């Protein structure tokens, strides 16, 4: 940044970020989807179902929830054992 740049620098509009974050958060909290309390239970049940077909390690299951204004993404990542592991 040039010396002049310091003086012409525009202030960051953090208030806008605050408003957007609140709008997204509160829309979910009001719908009772806050806290994602159901995630651990979901993870346990998913593992149970998948174990009927393949053996999976509990540490290799990841459940993530990403909340946006108009949609939420529930991402379930299950790492299946490699063939070599399966033979053991």
């Amino acid at each position: 940044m040039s010396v002049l740049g310091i003086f012409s620098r525009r202030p960051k509009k953090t208030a806008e970020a605050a408003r957007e974050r609140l709008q997204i958060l509160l829309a979910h909290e009001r719908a009772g989807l806050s806290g994602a309390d159901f995630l651990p239970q979901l993870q346990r049940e998913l593992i149970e179902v998948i174990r009927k077909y393949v053996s999976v390690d509990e540490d290799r299951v990841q459940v993530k929830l990403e909340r946006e204004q108009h949609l939420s993404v529930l991402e379930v990542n299950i790492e299946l054992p490699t063939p070599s592991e399966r033979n053991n």
Partner: protein
Amino acid sequence: MAKVIVVTSGKGGVGKTTSAAALSAGLALRGFKTAVIDFDVGLRNLDLIMGCERRVVYDFINVINGDAKLHQALIKDKRLENLFVLPTSQTRDKDALTQDGVERVIGELREEFDYIICDSPAGIERGAFLAMYFADEAIVVSNPEVSSVRDADRMIGLLTSKSRRAEQGEPIIQNLLLTRYDVERVEKGEMLKVEDVQDILAVPLLGIIPECPSVLQASNVGTPVILDEKSLAGRAYAEAVGRLLGDDVPVTVPRGSKRGLIDRLLRRTA
């Protein structure tokens, strides 16, 4: 008919006690017989803000337990004829508040007073719940800041579903009081605008209290800030009291007349 108003917020430190003190003093100034109750059991502070801390003999919990009569515990304000403070206990814990006890005391106060202001503790536990449960109206205090707005939203949800009025199918009247508002920071885009907070919370606006040195000065000496009639915060509270009583005063964004030297020079040349 007596009206019970809770001053609540969820989050701590946003100005509940300052507001409860100012609003109750304002109602008394307007001629209404007003009692203000401290519900923050164990962390007594309303007495200090009201400047009657050295006159506390009996408290709210003593009255609930039957150790003292209500009129023995009520402290008459030395400045305002119509104003009374019911302090809380400093030694008990929040379990000392019972629903039956609170109902009985509020019922007794209703017979004698025009307004009963309940100064809620922070949080959403027993003290905060009982402070709002018997209320006819609620004043939700929030700062223009994310965590305080979120907690205010939570509180609005509880008022809407868990208050006695809500249970009886008669909604509790809710108002928003936005405190510590700094118009210059708002204009710089550094602070949430009043319109944004109002949009998000969707509750009618009772007033905007500016960030103002008079609030700390008033608390230093134990005077409700509304009695500092020259201060911006004092005037903003007086207008809020007016609106509470139905005055048709539009909400304005409070702005000081003093500006920094550089700011004035810049504006002059602009």
